[in-house]
């Protein structure tokens, strides 16, 4: 296992939370500014949440045009592990590293709450070997409505889906209007994963409403 870079763009806000949670998960990590990012120094990358470039144009669209993300794309093509959380997920989609699009929530509101997530795929670096089928962690976003023109394809790529505590996915548990309740997708190979929920906010007992540390189960994927 090598080091993991947590890349900070102007407007990124969750880099320290992610860094602390990664340490908690046993992942060797450091925060690096997007301009100083040297891909040869790292085996994995996390793009944390926040509001890169003020969400101008569309959330993630400007960061997707940076040299740093071009380098992340190269790393992804080499099979290195890439995780995008929330705004990071939006960046990966905008950059074409993941399929689909993240549109404004159907109710046009910023949604901030704890949700249950059904684990659909266990062939990604994030979910491999995970024993639980339902996870509990928070979401906080205004543009999280996952869209893909091909529903069958979306089913193949989906990693997590919004559900109830028993893992049942229905529209009642869909916070933003996502296709098939999708909260997270990966590429075919499973080395690039994007997710709207925040695992770093479900990594410390004291900070979780029911002491959930399910986020660590996922982040440990960067240590495996």
């Amino acid at each position, binding site marked *: 296992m090598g080091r993991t870079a947590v890349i900070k763009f102007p407007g990124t806000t969750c880099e320290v939370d992610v860094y602390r949670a990664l340490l908690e998960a046993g992942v060797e990590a450091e925060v690096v500014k997007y301009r100083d990012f040297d891909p040869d120094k790292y085996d994995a990358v996390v793009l944390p949440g926040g509001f890169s470039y003020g969400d101008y*144009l569309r959330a993630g*669209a400007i960061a997707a045009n940076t040299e740093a993300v071009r380098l992340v794309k190269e790393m992804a093509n080499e099979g290195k592990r890439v995780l995008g959380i929330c705004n990071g997920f939006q960046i990966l989609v905008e950059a074409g590293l993941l399929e689909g699009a993240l549109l*404004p*929530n*159907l*109710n*046009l509101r910023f949604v901030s709450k704890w949700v249950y997530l059904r684990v659909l795929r266990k062939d990604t670096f994030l979910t491999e070997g995970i024993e639980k089928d339902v996870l509990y962690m928070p979401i906080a976003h205004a543009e999280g409505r996952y*869209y893909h023109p091909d529903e069958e394809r979306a089913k193949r790529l989906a990693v997590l889906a919004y559900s109830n505590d028993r893992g049942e996915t229905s529209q009642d548990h869909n916070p933003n209007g996502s296709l098939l309740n999708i909260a997270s997708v990966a590429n075919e190979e499973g080395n690039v994963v994007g997710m709207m929920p925040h695992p770093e906010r479900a990594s410390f007992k004291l900070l979780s409403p029911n002491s959930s540390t399910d986020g660590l189960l996922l982040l440990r994927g960067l240590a495996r």
Partner: protein
Amino acid sequence: MKFTVELIIMNKEGVRDPEGETLQKYVAEKFTSKFLSTRVGKYLRFEVEGSSGEEVVELVKRLANERKLYNPLVHKIEVRVVGQDGGD
């Protein structure tokens, strides 16, 4: 010559547009039933140097495509020249 070029980005048909739907339902059709539908998009205006309208439209389209000013999966674009000056 300097051209003023508009780029309009709209959701494709079939991709829901909650902002447009809300405006339609609560404002436009309440105003008069003559409003049949409302769509909301994004509007960008550029001043571009070039020798012809076709050339600058092509340039804006290339910018939009290559730098992903829109997402072709969910958006459609309209590019049009609305003014020019500096010509002979």
